[in-house]
């Protein structure tokens, strides 16, 4: 679809009144080329399905991942002194040792899938990155990292939303894609909230109607995602229900269309009312995404995603990228890093999480193949963890952490940043890894060099980005 019409115009031209595609369950309805009439913010814009610009994918490790286990400073003796039980052994013969990166740092062995990307120069790491604010509250620190204003609680929007504002003008021909930013998380992340339109779709397959979607019928029913924490246990009974329901409801087009038009009538865009505007957006977005049909894109190049959590999220992001809907920013997150007790070293809860994390990222990069030239993945976490292990063989909240930058145009194969050292005097407050790079400088450099915002100074109010200080993470 190269051009979209405003609803009234379309009706006049075709005599067909609009119907809306609403997802899932018993209500799968059909859409006919909606224009963004409901989305006040996108009024007047014409959508293009031919976007092939640059894309930034942010992956937030919520819960403060232990950066010292993720990217092991095996060259620093203090590391081993501080962690009698949970340190990762230095590279050497045999498994269960750090994978050497540059003679000083190594990857946690569970991140082995990422090693080839580092070797080939597509993965860069920045260590000892963090926030100048001293908070050790997850919630506050995450908020500060997402608003990009550490220490300030009153910032109403996220840094990614401000980035979107700065790249809006740069679109070719003044046209603007309908969905430029999308979070594959349940709720809209603070980083994306603000005046620029973005969407949180949760699980994309569920959002787009799974079983009932035209793109699904050919392949048959997909297994419903069985979340590890599902209290109900086995979903076998559910699947039968799903199949039955699908057969029953696929014959009831009339009914679904009827309901669709009803909801459409009730939800009109009203910026002042969060329920109305969100509802209208939702209906519009589904319609648009259905038309684009991202779920028809298969995983390529033999990539294998873990089928839960981040693996699933990134698989969907890859599909959205392949669908060329004009996406610029994608956001995913992964929890489960708050390893206060029994963290483990090369085995254990942290190692398991890192396995999932590494596999998901590697699969994503592999799946996209050449398209990775346009894509940068940036990982982040609200703070790191204590240098020393605690009384429960875990670690408590710390300060600096490590970020990863993955993409075709990344100057990879290097661990950037100044290493402050881990002796007690070198630690922050005598307990944590000290910060030598402000996270805003990493985020800012990546955003600036990759997406070219019109005005980089609006990204982080109160913090000025100095291009001459950039580390050179991305090829320009």
């Amino acid at each position, binding site marked *: 679809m190269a051009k979209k019409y405003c609803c009234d115009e379309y009706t006049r031209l075709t005599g067909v009144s609009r119907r809306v595609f*609403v*997802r*899932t*369950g*018993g*209500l799968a309805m059909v859409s006919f080329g909606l224009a963004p009439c409901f989305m006040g913010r996108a009024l007047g814009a014409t959508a293009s399905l031919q976007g092939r610009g640059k894309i930034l994918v942010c992956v937030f490790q919520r819960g403060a991942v232990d950066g010292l286990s993720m990217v092991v400073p095996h060259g620093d003796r203090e590391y081993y002194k501080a962690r009698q039980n949970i340190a990762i052994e230095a590279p050497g013969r045999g498994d269960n040792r750090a994978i050497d990166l540059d003679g000083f740092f190594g990857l946690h062995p569970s991140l082995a899938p990422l090693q080839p990307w580092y070797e080939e120069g597509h993965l860069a790491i920045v260590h000892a990155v963090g926030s100048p604010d001293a908070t*050790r*509250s997850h*919630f*506050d620190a995450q908020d500060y990292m997402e608003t990009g204003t550490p220490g300030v609680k009153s910032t109403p929007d996220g840094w990614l939303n401000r980035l979107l504002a700065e790249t809006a003008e740069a679109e070719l021909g003044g046209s603007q894609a309908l969905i430029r930013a999308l979070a594959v998380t*349940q*709720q*809209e992340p603070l980083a994306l*909230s603000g005046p620029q339109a973005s*969407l*949180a*779709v*949760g699980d994309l397959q*569920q*959002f787009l109607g799974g079983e009932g979607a035209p793109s699904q019928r050919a392949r048959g029913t997909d297994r419903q995602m069985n*979340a590890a*924490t599902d*209290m*109900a*246990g086995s979903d076998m009974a559910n699947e039968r*229900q*799903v199949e039955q*329901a*699908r057969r*029953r*409801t696929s*014959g*009831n087009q*009339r*009914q679904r269309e*009827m*309901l669709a*038009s*009803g*909801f459409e*009538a*009730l*939800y009109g865009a009203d910026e002042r*009312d*969060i*329920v109305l505007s*969100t*509802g209208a*957006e*939702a209906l519009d*977005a*589904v319609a648009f995404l259905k038309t684009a049909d991202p779920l028809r894109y298969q995983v390529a190049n033999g990539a294998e995603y873990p089928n839960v959590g981040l693996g699933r999220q990134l698989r969907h992001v890859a599909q959205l990228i392949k669908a060329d809907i004009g996406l610029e920013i994608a956001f995913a997150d992964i929890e489960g890093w708050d390893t*206060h*007790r029994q963290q483990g070293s090369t085995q254990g809860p942290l190692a398991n999480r890192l396995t999932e994390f590494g596999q998901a990222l590697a699969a994503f990069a592999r799946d996209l193949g050449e398209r990775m030239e346009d894509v940068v993945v940036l990982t982040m976490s609200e703070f790191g963890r204590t240098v020393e292990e*605690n*009384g*429960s063989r*875990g670690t*408590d*909240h710390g300060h600096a952490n490590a970020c990863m930058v993955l993409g075709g145009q990344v100057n990879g194969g290097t661990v950037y940043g100044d290493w402050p050292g881990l002796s007690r005097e070198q630690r922050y407050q005598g307990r944590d890894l000290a910060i030598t790079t402000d996270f805003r400088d990493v985020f800012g450099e990546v955003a600036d060099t990759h997406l070219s915002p019109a005005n980089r100074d609006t990204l982080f109010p109160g913090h000025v980005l100095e291009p001459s200080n950039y580390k050179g993470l991305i090829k320009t």
Partner: protein
Amino acid sequence: MRQANDAGTIAHVLNRIAFGPRRSDWELADELGAEGYVRWQLEPESITDRSVNTKLDRLPTLKMDIGELYRGYPPAQAAERLMREDEELDEEARRRLERQSRIPLQELAAARMVRAVESEKQLNEVLVDFWFNHFNVFYRNRIRSLISTYEREAIRPHVLGSFRHMLGAVAHSPAMLVYLDNWQSAAEEDRKVFGPSPRARNDAVEDAIRAMPRAGGMPNPRQMQQMQRQRRQQRRNRPPGLNENYARELMELHTLGVDGGYTQNDVREVARALTGWTLTLGARNFDNTGFVFRPDWHDAEEKTILGKMLPAGRGLEDGEDVLDMLAAHPETATFIATKLCRKFIADRPPGDLVDTVAGVFLRTRGNLRATTAAVLLSDEFLGTEYHGSKVKSPMEFLTSAARSLDLPINTNGQLGRNLRQLGAPLYGAASAAGYPDIAAEWTSANAILARMDVGALLAAEAFPDGSVLSGTGRGTGSRGRTGGQQRPRRRRPRTGGGPVGTLEVRIDALLAQILPGGVGGETREKIIDWGDSQDSAPSNAEIATLILGSPEFQRR
């Protein structure tokens, strides 16, 4: 000013201190007037709940104590320890135990939904939901079987009682001790502890007594030796350090709030005060609550918290003093008052009211009945200024939908499972902060669409007119089942059901039933126009679906 009987105010009250209007509650509230209804609900002791209790009698785990639950429904890992040393668990047995271990929490969730939808003590249930969320625990593997007694003993009895009692019960509860890791927190190596292990002196005798029934006589010397070895091992297994997790959340999330003026040092000192607060969940020795204080783990040196010095040489009193201090702190009063006002008034609670309520909290030393009353009897609450100012959370949406449709709820937990699709499964808030309470958090694209879907399911159940609006979800799971009669006077017709007559009559009837506070004229017009423009008149289920998914129904 207060208009005690106008429909808008009654709806507002029932949407806030109850889980939405239901026919019988509406009649009562109408009779008593808004304020009268509020006052009545503030004294749940005077209300009986016979039909709900009869239903809940069907769920045996609801009454079991922590020992029974842990032994009867242990997580697979713990079960292994229950068995003899030479037995191992195969895959099949492990899976069976996994399923078994889920039962107490499933029953608890089912009970919670039954109560939320059908209890006469609506305010009590709203408050249980609120306070559980405030002192949130997440149903990870290890603590599933602990949550049942947690809700029943640490939360429910105190929601209109004493905040300090609730705080203490939570701090002593195995669920919280495990969830936030305090059960593994002990004095650091170089610190003096309070005393020896509590069982040191009586070990040998106790072991002998315990061994007797199984051996059918005096334990043989080999068994005695084995037990003594185990005991020594236990003593050696004292965790060698402090865990700050609970101490931090105790202040950040449970009492003072993140801006409450405590420092990292305070967190550490509180953690020291709480060392030795742990539990006994070993299969053999159990007391009623599962809590135990280990003097040999407790850091007995001097501490300074929020400027106050706790002298050295004390045991359990250290932790109790900290809880006293926090419960009585003005920042706590403000924090609690703010949360209550956010829950009952608006996302941005009016500052004056917060101050007033905080004052009541302080003056009454944390009397939650008085504090809650201060909110619910205020002009802000009973007036019209804040009508419709809140967006329903998933729980509020689901329960208000079920109540407005008068759907009978079973104890099989089906209704509650819709909460996953809506984004907020019971006991499923992963963070210690619980689920949020502001509109922005509940209004993403998914959330709204999920509500349209779930609304369709419930509408189809309420008005089963043969249409196939059933989809993939679970509704209430009560179709085709007998049992659970709690309103004998209301007969469900065999087919369809609901209002009859012309389209407009039916639409008005359904609007009056589902949105009894009234709807804007525009919405009514839109629905009628929509209905009129269809080829054949929409069924009651279809109309109800629209109303449940409408913007109005998302608000309260």
